[in-house]
């Protein structure tokens, strides 16, 4: 079990290392709804993880500047894509603390396109990033 976890972690790290220079064709949609030139970081607690097609969705509770907890939705690559690259449906679990870097929605809604995440212990979770259609 420990070895499996280590293997998954290594694979995830490899993915994140590859991510910087990777060139990926895009299947499902363009990224015109997202501000691809900018990133934002939020830190909170995982409320729900949708391990679903055509995209994974990470729902994370984040306290705003007034201390009010708001739920954000962060879109990630598909489970099919991620499972072949070291992820599982349990890589991110309800209750996990995460800092997520993402491209925010242009319309100001509380959502965005996943770029990377970091656990409190420093472990980085990467998906191959989307390519802006610009």
């Amino acid at each position, binding site marked *: 079990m420990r070895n499996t976890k280590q293997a998954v972690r290594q694979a995830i790290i490899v993915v994140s290392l590859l991510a910087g220079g990777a*060139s990926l064709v*895009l299947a499902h949609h363009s990224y015109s709804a997202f501000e691809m030139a900018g990133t934002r970081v939020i830190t909170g607690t995982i409320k729900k993880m*949708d391990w679903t097609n*055509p995209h994974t*969705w990470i729902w994370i509770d984040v306290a705003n500047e007034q201390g009010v907890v708001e739920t954000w939705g962060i879109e990630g690559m598909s489970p099919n*894509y991620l499972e072949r690259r070291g992820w599982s449906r349990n890589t991110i679990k309800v209750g996990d603390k995460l800092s997520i870097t993402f491209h925010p929605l242009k319309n100001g809604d509380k959502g965005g396109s996943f770029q990377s995440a970091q656990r409190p212990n420093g472990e980085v979770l990467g998906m191959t990033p989307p390519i802006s259609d610009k």
Partner: protein
Amino acid sequence: MDRTTHILFGYVTASLMFGPTGAAQSVTRKAPTAAEWASLAKLPDFNGVWESAPGGGAVGRAGGRGDATAKGGPAPAAAGAGRAGRGGGPSLTPAYAAKARARTANPAEDAQAANCLPPGLPAIMNQPYPMEFLLTPGKVTIVIEAYTQVRHIYTDGRPLPADPNPLFYGTSVGHWEDDILVVETVGLAEVPRGLTFPYSEKLKVVERFRLTGPDTMSIETTLIDPEAFTAPYSMGTRNLARHRTWTIAEYICEENNRNFVDDKGNAGTKLSNPLSSAK
């Protein structure tokens, strides 16, 4: 039965079955013989699960991006393909160059794939998901993970239909030229198919599949359209890698799709009801 005999056998069988009119819809499929199953072993081994290799090639960039990228649109005439390939797109006839210019007026922010409409051929062959090739007597079947799609390519010698119904993937027949599987497809409806230039109902897609190594395959794709293009247009060669430990996974796009493009062409994302997702 060697390959030439195999092809010849197919043609003879087909001509006997279909008669001179080539009515493909009326084909009666007979149970394959042991010899027909055995003859498959002499063909190149395309069986298995394949995915675009990193840096897959010209079409690798064109189809996938074009699929999701209606905007940007075609520039006039020869620059019509935009990102569609090294050649910069086909040379268009005057009537289709005019169509290309008209399409640039109000480009949509996204393609209908955002609403889960699968892209047609050739973009469906260029998704960031694997495809499984299955060779059976008289047929090559490609099971495409993205959008849970299937292509049926008949290699039994039947002719292309003379008056095909327009379809997303058209109607495909294939034949072997030595170790190359040549697939011709006609009857392509005007649907999102990753092409940023206009085409007519006479469009024919020719794909040449060949093994380039033990676990590598190349696909050379050419578009022929005597009404819209002044010459055949090569989309270049794309490379696939075989993944012998992979299987095809399910991909139900409607399961939890939160992306959309509306009828005005505006793209968006729905964040409502996060806990109502399917699982």
